[in-house]
Each structure stands twice: as structure tokens, then as C-alpha cells.
């Protein structure tokens, strides 16, 4: 995997790199091969962790290079260094063989490096074209030149099939369209190297296909793309080469054609990964939930659920599939008492959930693993211990005569952290310091204690790495085998097909 053709002369004196831009003196690299970017010995430390541990990375011109790794492997940190958002503690960046210092994203853009972040950097109330020219100075004086802007956007849109209405406001666009705006934004700034940070995590399968087609067109046109992901299927589908990171180090770089999912997973996780889950035969019990003719509006006041009816039985997983925005969110919220319904009923063992508050529903034995696990599922500044009693703090043993029992909460936290393998220094650690997988385990531990009868799991493995995903799925199956009725909402078709006993499609 290491070929000598891209080897730079390392150990340059500091002053060569200290000036911005290419100094062009003795620091140039031998560029026999066509390496656009070379990173050498990049080190980045954060308090308590080494996010990047002397990383070397070569990016060849006109390729799609996947950066594969679990959450916290250091992929995003590395790319933020390349994009000038972080300064490395050590190491050098070479662009076309010359050492450069990325002092800011503006400098990176000046060198033709653009980045599409996982969470978009768009202003919702501004239009597409306003967002695209934001921060540029091209018109005369303080004035914008909308006609020129629109023409240039139209050209980019046509060349790469990135169709979007330049006058639409961002908030009116779907997530896929917003991502297109981000790509256009980078191309508008004449980026020829595009960093995509987990671009598919917010997209539906159809949108993913469309994105991959776009990326292919871009590469055919001479652009270079660095694609950050933790999804193996995407690596196989889109990349030319793949560099695997684990715990801040490069494990290997291999041509995609010469590897497979199993090998990549082993490199990424560091052990064999079970792709097939052991699933017990269905042992369906009594009916838990009876939903009849459920109607609800979405946040914009448009009907999102129009007469949804289904039954859910104990001991089964009912999958809910559908393009995002088809009412999955509204369905889970309506059943959890977080959204008012306009018509219909949802009867859980003789109580109609549509007439209950969120608290009453939780007390009926309904667990809810929400889509937005950080925003809704946790209180980031509060401790793991407190987050674990967020739903049960009013009841004994945690609360007696309105006083909270810290000892009981502590014992509860110790048990939960052990049972669900929540990694934290202790139970007083703030929840915001946990990784995504640990936060989801925390939410599961809290929601699933007390043997719920009905579990709403909304995108339970969204954004999680392979190891955490595997564990979450096993937890859900264990709940099923115990006799809970589970409503599984997911956009991951593999997940739905593997876990569900029946599948419901919202359209």
C-alpha cells in the first residue's frame, strides 16, 4: 500500500511552512506521481485524546478517495486540518508537492479546496444564490451582481446536473437539495478538491444514488474528491481508493477494487464483525397497539399523516419504511404524545395515546428512542447519572417526598453503564462529552429500563459506527424476544429487512 512515488522529503525547517502559500524553495516534493495533496505526520491532540496520531495521507488527482473509520477515528479532524479549521500540533500539508499552511478555510478555498460539512453551513432565511455568494466580494463596491451570479450558478447546475432554483429560500428545500447548494457553493468558488464529510448521512437512498452520480461527473471533469464515511457499502460503491483510519492512525490504504466489505470492516473495527444477526423465530403475542385512521399535521401545518391504521403485536418488530418527510417523524411524535393529532386513535391496551400527555404515555410503559438523540434525548450539560433518570426522576427510588435520592440515581447509573457498556469516566461526566454511540446507549439504557411494552425506535442506528450499530440492533432484538412490541422507523433498508418481522410503508 505504501509506494515510494509520493514520498516527500520530511523534516523541513519550520520557517519554510510558516509563511502562507507556496514558498517554492527547497521544500518542494518530488511529484513523480500525480498527488494533489499529501499530508505528512499530522498530529492533533485534544484534551485527553489524540485525534490524529502522525497521519500520512496521499490524494491522487481526479480520484474519489474514501476516508473510512468509526466515529471518533479522526476522519473529520483530519479534514478540518486540511480545510484550515484546525491547526495541527505537528505535521505538514503539501499541495501539488509544495508545503503550505492552511491558516483558515479562506486560505483553503484560495488553494482550491472546498468542504461540504455534515451539518450544512447555510442561512435558512436567505435564498440559494444569496447563500452561494455569501462572503465573496465580486460585485462593485457593496453591491451584488445577481445577474452574473445567476448565470454562473446556472452553468454549474447544467454542467454537473445540480439542479436547484437559485431564488428559493434554503428552508424551503429538502435536505438533498440543500446539499446540492453546498456543492454548488464550493464549485462556485472554483474548488477542484472537494471534501465531503459524511454526505449521505442525511439523504434518502434515492438521493444517495443521485449524489454518487454527481460525484462521478465531477471526477470525470477533473475534480478530486475526499469522501468521509463509515458506511462500507458507500466505499464499495463510490471510491477509487480507500484509506482506513482507526483511533487516529492510518490502518491501510487500498484500491477499492482489491478489497471487500469484510476486509474493510475488520480494518476499521479491528476485529471480525457479524453482519448477520441471530434472530429468534417470531413469537407473536397479544395486540399491543391499535392505530386507526390517524391524522396529524407537520410543523408547517400541512397534513403529514392521513388516515394511518395498523396493529402492533407483542414480540414483533414492525418496520416503518418510506422516503424521509413522508410522516415517519410525525408518526413517532404522535404516538409519543409530542404532537397533537387531528383525528383518529392509537389505543395501547385500553388507553388512547392521542389523548395522553407525553408523561402519561411514558408512564404507560412506552419507550421512545427519538430521532434527534442529542437535541431531544439528552440534556448535554447534565451528568450521565441525571440523564439516566430523566424519565423516572419523579418516582421512587429516585424521588421520595419530592427529594431526589442521589444514591439511588448513582446505583442506577452504575448498573446501566455496565449493562449497556456506556463508556464514561464516571456517572458525573456531562453527557455532551460522550461519543455518539455512547449517547445512544445512554438513551437506550434509560428508555428500555422497566420493561416497556411498546418501543418507538426512530432511526436508532443513524450516524453510529459498525460496532455501535451492531449492539443497538442486538438490544432491540432482545427487547422483541422479551415480548415488547417495537415500531422501528428507519431509512436504512438493510436494517429494516434484517430486523423487522413486518414492514409498513408510509407514502
Amino acid at each position, binding site marked *: 500500500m505504501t509506494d515510494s512515488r509520493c514520498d516527500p522529503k520530511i523534516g523541513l525547517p519550520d520557517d519554510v511552512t510558516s509563511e502562507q502559500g507556496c514558498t517554492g524553495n527547497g521544500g518542494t516534493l518530488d511529484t513523480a506521481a500525480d498527488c494533489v495533496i499529501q499530508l505528512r505526520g499530522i498530529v492533533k491532540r485534544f484534551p485527553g485524546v489524540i485525534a490524529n496520531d502522525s497521519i500520512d495521507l496521499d490524494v491522487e488527482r481526479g480520484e474519489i478517495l474514501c476516508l473510512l473509520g468509526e466515529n471518533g477515528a479522526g476522519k473529520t479532524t483530519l479534514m478540518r486540518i486540511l480545510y484550515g479549521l484546525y491547526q495541527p500540533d505537528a505535521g505538514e500539508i503539501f499541495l501539488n508537492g509544495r508545503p503550505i499552511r492552511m491558516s483558515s478555510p479562506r486560505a483553503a478555498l484560495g488553494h482550491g479546496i472546498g468542504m461540504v460539512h455534515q451539518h450544512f453551513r447555510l442561512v435558512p432565511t436567505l435564498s440559494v444564490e444569496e447563500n452561494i455568494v455569501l462572503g465573496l466580494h465580486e460585485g462593485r463596491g457593496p453591491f451584488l451582481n445577481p445577474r452574473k451570479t445567476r448565470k454562473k450558478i446556472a452553468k454549474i447546475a447544467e454542467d454537473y446536473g445540480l439542479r436547484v432554483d437559485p431564488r428559493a429560500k434554503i428552508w424551503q428545500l429538502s435536505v438533498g437539495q440543500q446539499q446540492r447548494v453546498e456543492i454548488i457553493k464550493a464549485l462556485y468558488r472554483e474548488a477542484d478538491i472537494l471534501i465531503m464529510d459524511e454526505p449521505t448521512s442525511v439523504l434518502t437512498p434515492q438521493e444517495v444514488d443521485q449524489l454518487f452520480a454527481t460525484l462521478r461527473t465531477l471526477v470525470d471533469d477533473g475534480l478530486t474528491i475526499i469522501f468521509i464515511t463509515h458506511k462500507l457499502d458507500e466505499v464499495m460503491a463510490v471510491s477509487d481508493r480507500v484509506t482506513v483510519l482507526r483511533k487516529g492512525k492510518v490502518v491501510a490504504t487500498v484500491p477499492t477494487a482489491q478489497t471487500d466489505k469484510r476486509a474493510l470492516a475488520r480494518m476499521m473495527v479491528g476485529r471480525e464483525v457479524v453482519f448477520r444477526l441471530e434472530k429468534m423465530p417470531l413469537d407473536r403475542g397479544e395486540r399491543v397497539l391499535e392505530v386507526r385512521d390517524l391524522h396529524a399535521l407537520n410543523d408547517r401545518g400541512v397534513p403529514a399523516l392521513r388516515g394511518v391504521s395498523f396493529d402492533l403485536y407483542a414480540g414483533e418488530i414492525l418496520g416503518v419504511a418510506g422516503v424521509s418527510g413522508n410522516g415517519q417523524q410525525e408518526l413517532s411524535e404522535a404516538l409519543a404524545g409530542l404532537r397533537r393529532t387531528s383525528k383518529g386513535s392509537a389505543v395501547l391496551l385500553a388507553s388512547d395515546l392521542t389523548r395522553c400527555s407525553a408523561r402519561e404515555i411514558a408512564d404507560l410503559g412506552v419507550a421512545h428512542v427519538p430521532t434527534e438523540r442529542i437535541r431531544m434525548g439528552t440534556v448535554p450539560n447534565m451528568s450521565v447519572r441525571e440523564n439516566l433518570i430523566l424519565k423516572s426522576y419523579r418516582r421512587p427510588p429516585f424521588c421520595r417526598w419530592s*427529594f*431526589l435520592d442521589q444514591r439511588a440515581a448513582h446505583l442506577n447509573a452504575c448498573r446501566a453503564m455496565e449493562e449497556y457498556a456506556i463508556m464514561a469516566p464516571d456517572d458525573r461526566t456531562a453527557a455532551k462529552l460522550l461519543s455518539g454511540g455512547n449517547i445512544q446507549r445512554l438513551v437506550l439504557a434509560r428508555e428500555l429500563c422497566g420493561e416497556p411494552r411498546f418501543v418507538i425506535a426512530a432511526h436508532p442506528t443513524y450516524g453510529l459506527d459498525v460496532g455501535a450499530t451492531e449492539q443497538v440492533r442486538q438490544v432491540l432484538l432482545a427487547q422483541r424476544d422479551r415480548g415488547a412490541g417495537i415500531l422501528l422507523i428507519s431509512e436504512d433498508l438493510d436494517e429494516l429487512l434484517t430486523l423487522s418481522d413486518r414492514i409498513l410503508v408510509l407514502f
Partner: protein
Amino acid sequence: MRAPSFLRVERRTAPSPRVVFGVSLLAILVALIAAGIFFQVYGVSPIRAYGDILRGAFGSRLGLTETVRRAIPLLLCGVGLTIAFRALFWNIGAEGQLLIGATAATGIALFSGLPGPLLLPVMFLVGFAAGALWGSIPAALKAKLGINDVITTLMMNYIAIYIVEWLIHGPWKGPTMRGFAYTDRFPAAAILPTIGITRIHWPTLLLGLALTVLAFVLVKRTRWGFEIRVVGENPHAARFAGISHFKITVLAMVVSGGLAGLAGVGEVAGIHHMLLGPTHVSMGYGYTAIIVAWLARRNPLAVIVTSLLFAIIMRGGDVIKVTLGLPFQLVNVFNGLILFFLIGSEILMRYRIRLAPRRA
């Protein structure tokens, strides 16, 4: 701008209490230095000015007792504000809540006709209720309609101020006051006892200290405190957990406004023995208490210390005026500077500077 290469600025994950304390102290120190410039401009040596202020606050028995009596309303308002701030409700209206509490107590003292022994307890109860009501109006408006709390609480201060003005110039104007805009003096049974000849109305002081401890227990140990914190830290999670945003916001503001109302009762029943012009009743205690609560980092117990600190500064205002012959308003400049540096220091707490290891 970049730090020199041998220094490194790092993000802290969570500032320790020691860091918080140290940075707060530093902020006050920097504010003192900045305020010193003003003294210098007036031709007074800052060192002499601070010396005089400290002597004024502690040097004599009068100074000490005047400091303590100013700490009483700051303590009550400040403790209330820590609770409101924890629920992420920006109560800028302690001033108005204090005035309304004072007004309600005056009404009871002068017009209720209650028998003597009942008078003071009822005044405190009604003062609390009035402040609580005044505070819960903006709370309800925010929780139900999403109306900005800063604006409503601030505006309600002016309503309270003009209610007091109207009462003392109009219907409640005391016939025995020879045309001054005061109400009549309270009957003896409606006047709080003080320590000796000082102006420390000790029942309010004791009440304040007891309520401080109670507020601390409420926040740290009870389910309501837990709910207030969840609502303040993450309203989405609160909704998800079935915590009523409305109930908790109103609860926090009932406590916050009620405590400010008690402070108002203490001022009229302990110091003035009548209702008079709003700036005389309060002297901006409700506004200063915002800084008091902020400096205490929303911890009710710490308010005991910070309220005393700001009482010294307010007492310093007297010294500035009497001894140094400078305008009293310098106190406001000083308060503003402290708040400025305090809020500015928040960002400092999240970083630390370290010597960088030599590059490999």
C-alpha cells in the same frame, strides 16, 4: 492574530470550580483597575479611593451596618434570580417585582385594618404574592406565546415604577406629609425591628438567609430543581421527558418574583416606614441583583457572598459622594464594568493556555 509558538490555547472540556472562582476574581480585579481610570480622570488616586471605600464599608460600625442592610435586598433578589436564570428565564424585572411587593405591603400596612401582631406576617405574605404575580405574567407570556422575556420583564419595571409614582402622588398621598409625595407613616405594628440603632432589619435578614438555604435545597435536591435545570438546559429534552415548560417557567418566576417582592417589603417596613419615590425605595437593587446572581454562577449559596460584595460597592457610592465629592453614578459605571468583564470572562473559562511541547 496568533499566539506565540511556545504557547498553546486549548479548549477546556469542563471548567473546574477552581477555575470558575479564579476567573471571576480576575474579572472583578480587572474591573477595579478599569474603574480606577475614572477615579484618575477625576483627579483622585484610585488607591486612595479604594482605601476610602473599604474604610467606609468596614472601618466603622455605621459603615458595616449600612453595608449589611444593603446586602439584604440584594440577597433576596439575587437568590430569586439564580432560580429564574437556571430555568433560562432572563428576568430583568426584579426591580419591578420588588416595587410591587413594597406597594402591596404598604397597602396592607396602611389600609387593611388587621390587628397588630398579624400585620407584618401578612405584609410579607402579600408582598411575596404580589412579586410572584408580577413575575409570573411575563413567564406565562413566554411559555404560552413565546414573547421575549427580557423585554416583558424590563417593561413591567416601568409599569411598576409608574404605579408607585401614581399612588404616592394620588390616592395614597399621605395627608400628614405636608404635601410631600409620600404615603403616611406605617403604624408601629407594621415596622420591622432593627438591631439597636442600626438600619439592619434583622427579620428580613434572617428570612433572606433561610430562603437562600431553602432555594439551594430546592435547586440541588428536589425534583422541581431537577425540572428547572432540564427546562433551562434543554427545553426539547424537557418536552420529551414530559416536563411542562409552562409550569416550570411559572414556578421559577413565582419564586424569583416572590423573593424580590419580599425584598420590597423589607425596604418599606424596615428602612423607610412608608412608600415613597421608586428610586428611593429601591436604588436599583433589582438591577444590581442581576450581576449578583451572575457572579454567583447561579448558585444560591454563593449569592450570600456576592450580595455582600455589591453591598460594599453600593456603600462605596456613599463614600464616593460624601468623602471624595464625586458623583454617585460612578457606582453604576463600576457595576457595569464588573458585569462587562464577568460576561467577557465566560469565554476565558472555556480555554486554557499551556506551554507547547517542542515540535518534533
